[in-house]
């Protein structure tokens, strides 16, 4: 299904674990340095109200004066677990794209503020880079370096799966539980 900007609370609350979405709108990249910076009280250089944060350190080069995205797959999200929930609440971030899922704290905040976790396909750097149709800007690049900067990506039909929703559902917790039960059975 399509998930188009503006990313309102209503649209996000309608999403359920297992939904396969295609995102169209602006997403902001942010990984370790950005999360720590905002957590420590740094001022966000963009308006994060109803925004989507993408855990991604892209490869972006300038060709003929224009930014071109060469690779833009997700990075492991769990590193932002201490910061993510509180930042979602403080700035109104509606969704997080990443890989590997996040923990109980983020899941609680998703329920509280109306947020979701969107799992992109890890390693699919080329498919995902192609869905970035324009680079609208870059922030904090001088401070943190290119992969850790906030890139403002216009994306079109960017594919992801809802693996944590605003109703307490987590595909990660569910798969872990089911596979652990099967494992126990195999070990006898």
């Amino acid at each position, binding site marked *: 299904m399509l998930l188009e900007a503006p990313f309102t609370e209503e649209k996000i609350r309608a999403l359920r674990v297992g939904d396969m979405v295609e995102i169209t709108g602006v997403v902001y990249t942010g990984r370790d340095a950005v999360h720590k910076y905002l957590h420590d009280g740094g001022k966000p250089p963009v308006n994060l109200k109803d925004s989507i944060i993408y855990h991604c350190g892209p490869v972006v080069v300038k060709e003929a004066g224009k930014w071109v995205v060469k*690779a833009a797959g997700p990075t492991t999200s769990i590193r932002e677990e201490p910061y993510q929930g509180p930042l979602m609440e403080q700035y109104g971030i509606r969704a997080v794209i990443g890989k590997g899922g996040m923990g109980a704290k983020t899941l609680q905040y998703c329920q509280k503020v109306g947020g979701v976790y969107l799992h992109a396909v890890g390693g*699919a*750097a080329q498919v995902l880079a192609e869905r970035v149709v324009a680079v609208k800007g870059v922030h904090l690049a001088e401070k943190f370096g290119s992969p850790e900067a906030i890139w403002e990506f216009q994306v079109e039909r960017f594919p992801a799966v809802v693996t944590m929703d605003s109703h307490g559902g987590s595909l990660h917790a569910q798969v872990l539980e089911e596979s652990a039960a099967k494992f126990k059975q195999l*070990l006898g």
Partner: protein
Amino acid sequence: MDARALQKNLLELIRRTSAELPTDVVRAVEAGARKEKAGSNARYALEVIRDNIVMAKDKSQPLCQDTGTIICYAELPKWCDERTFRSAYEKAVVEATRVGYLRQNSVDSVTGANSGDNLGPGNPSFHFHQATGRALTVRMMLKGGGCENVSSQYSLPDTKLGAGRDLEGVRRVVLDSVLQAQGKGCGPGILGVCIGGDRGMGYVAAKETLFRELDDTNEDPRLAKLEKRIMKEGNSLGIGPMGFGGATTLLGVKFTHRNRVPASFFVSIAYMCWAFRRNGFVLSEGGRITRWLYDS
């Protein structure tokens, strides 16, 4: 020998390895997709993966932005000494990084500084052997951080898992490693497992066994049987591609073994992601590539 020609061939090896998956891996991904239900999250993930494989090859760009640890195994004949080879390989790596076949991926573990050219202590990671004939054989692997982070090593016996010092104990810890990894290593994954050895040798051998073709059969019938069983049982865990749930958790299982001291019994498991980047070639004394080790 012509060091510049060697460097040029090595640059092509790096490009191919980073952008093109060997056909045995592509076939395994396609077989996995056929097993997943239409419209499922698992099928969706494998379709994106398949599209990504095609696109990276067409564009000659890295399959995954994490171009990983660069691991090189070389069998050197008498006409090429280790220093000459190392220098040519390092130059090829610097050039590959400059043109974007490789990401800047070498970080000083004390200062946190990125060297910017993929060179530094231990980078690339070389394993040299003396060749028996006149041909030079190079194999390389790019192993990303996500799958390296979920690789693991067990010391038997393991009371919690009821794993003793026998093949049944090995089975138990290997299945546990798959459970612990869930989807975090960018599955469906491929396991390289070494039974025995010391801790260091165990991991080196576990990675080296990943060079086997995915659909071959272990020449040791006991290990062949164990590989089949782990493959079946691992997939029955239902973790699926990316941990989304599904039938395709593993694309392959490869075992090897090394002798151990009586006091130790290690099982080392190298988890490899679906972006299983490995290739190699055989070079004649005249500097010509006579054969690529994998179709891509």
